[in-house]
């Protein structure tokens, strides 16, 4: 079973070797270009092939995201309700005023923030534990890793139904533990169950990202610390955590953005009842149930801006090295 540990370890080793080789090559290349030497035919052919190979992927990604998001900015500046198409007109920032002075929006925003902060914090702790178990367990490593992957792979809606029925009075094994009360009909308990479902589903993903960081912790360092009399907790905080910091930040960034998009679980568990809507639920309701494209698009834009701010804070304040960014430097 110890074979399981090798892929990540081997990758890390390969990764460690690579930069030196490539860095050495960069100055020479830059110098050549800088001198204005004409590109060789080979070089030009390589460029053309590179662009050609990337073009389809780039085109699809830009067409399906950049254009719609710009279009939704345009839609958000209009009064545009599909039930009253004749009243479509340009209204400037009126939709933004409507949304930002609306209690439903701020309630949903608060709910989303609460879910994001609580689930990500709990997932970080549980995910770290799970990562340590998957990485260091002496027995049944394969079984644990397989079991932990199941919540990751399961369709969120399926898991949400499982939780819903578990908490349905009469039907559910969990509801019956609490005297058959109906927790999904009250706000606080509904939110708790939504968070439980989120945590169950996404902790394994967090753990996998953290485990990749754990693989980078040099075993010698741990042994040396142990010989010097460091306790298990000291080894964890003084040796492991500093090495893992980049992996932790990336995992936090990804999970935070993902948690902010919470939708499936709420849809199935409460359908947004009892003020448990997230911003995504609210945008969906305005669009599909309200057919209000103007307001729906305004919310889309506001969510986009919020997510951009979160990502910016992570990258600038915490210095999260975005995955692939080292890739660019190495070039």
């Amino acid at each position, binding site marked *: 079973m110890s074979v399981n540990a090798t892929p990540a370890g081997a990758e890390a080793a390969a990764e460690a070797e690579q930069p030196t080789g490539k860095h050495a090559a960069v100055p020479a290349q830059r110098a050549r270009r800088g001198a204005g030497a004409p590109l060789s035919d080979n070089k030009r052919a390589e460029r053309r092939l590179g662009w050609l*190979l990337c073009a389809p992927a780039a085109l699809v990604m830009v067409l399906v995201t950049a254009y719609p998001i710009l279009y939704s900015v345009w839609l958000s500046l209009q009064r545009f309700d599909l039930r009253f198409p004749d009243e479509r007109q340009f209204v400037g920032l009126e939709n933004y005023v409507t949304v930002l002075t609306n209690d439903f929006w701020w309630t949903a925003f608060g709910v989303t923030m609460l879910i994001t902060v609580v689930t990500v914090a709990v997932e970080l702790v549980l995910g770290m534990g799970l990562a340590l178990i998957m990485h260091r367990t002496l027995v049944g490593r394969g079984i644990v890793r397989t079991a932990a992957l199941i919540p990751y792979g399961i369709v969120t809606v399926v898991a949400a139904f499982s939780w819903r029925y578990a908490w349905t009075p009469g039907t559910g*094994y969990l509801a019956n533990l609490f005297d058959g009360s109906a927790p999904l009909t009250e706000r606080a308990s509904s939110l708790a169950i939504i968070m439980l479902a989120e945590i169950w589903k996404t902790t394994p993903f967090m753990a996998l990202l953290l485990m990749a960081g754990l693989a980078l912790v040099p075993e010698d360092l741990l042994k040396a610390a142990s010989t010097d009399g460091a306790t298990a907790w000291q080894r964890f905080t003084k040796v492991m955590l500093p090495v893992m910091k980049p992996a932790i930040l990336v995992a936090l960034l990804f999970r935070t953005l993902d948690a902010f998009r919470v939708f499936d679980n709420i849809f199935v568990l409460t359908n947004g009842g009892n003020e448990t809507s997230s*911003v995504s639920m609210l945008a969906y309701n305005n*669009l599909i149930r309200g057919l209000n494209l103007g307001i729906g698009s305004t919310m889309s834009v506001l969510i986009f801006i919020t997510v951009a701010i979160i990502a910016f804070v992570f990258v600038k304040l915490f210095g999260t090295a975005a995955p692939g960014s080292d890739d660019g430097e190495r070039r």
Partner: protein
Amino acid sequence: MAVETTTRAKLRWGVLDVVVVVFALVPVLWIASLSFKTPATLTDGKFWPREWTLENYRTIFDTDQFVRALINSIGIALIATAIAVVLGTMAAYAISRLDFPGKKLLVGVSLLIAMFPQVSLVSPLFEIERQLGLFDTWPGLILPYITFALPLAIYTLSAFFKQIPWDLEKAAKMDGATQGQAFRRVIAPLAAPGVFTTAILVFIFCWNDFLFAITLTSTERSRTVPVALQFFTGESQFEDPTGAICAAAVVITVPIILFVLFFQRRIVSGLTSGAVKG
């Protein structure tokens, strides 16, 4: 003494392992158990069924609603996976093997899209697809799936491609192999596991999607199973849809569990290499 500590340590790890396995499996076992319960015992609140029945499975496979949705789910996920993997392979090959300006930009753009709030696309895509006649069609779902699967595919694949010893290609050619032979016999077998792993991850992503499926479809023509489950509720054809929903849920869970069981190691290395190391 040393033996004793290892036994104790093993026991401790063993207990932790059991906790993890139970934590991971209980919700899955619960919905499976519900799907095997008879209507009479469905609401008994017991974890395991007292009477077992396959009635719920028979019901869903007898209804057009579920079968259509299953066909939609499989078709849409397979097509989106195939296209995303082909486009992703091309781009990842270029990123890991070729030097060209704009490479950094492409990596940056795909990272942005990986973090993009999908709900922000729901309103504009709804309107755009309505105008283009793509609303409630397979391509209408396949397009956004490809888009959001591509960053995943590009990251995972370029991580895999960087590990391939490409010099082998040269060696094969020196030994007299043609370009085509060198690719087919040497490079393709080395790249295949990476491509395959990526395909599984992308498939799971498409299979899982609910947000796009519920906003960009409106009829059985293109509704996928996660969405169709919602519409079991309150349908008059089912007295109580719980059993049917659970059976349908189990049916779409089985392929994922099989993937996880058979390809656990690859999925783990694919996910982590793609997400952390780029």
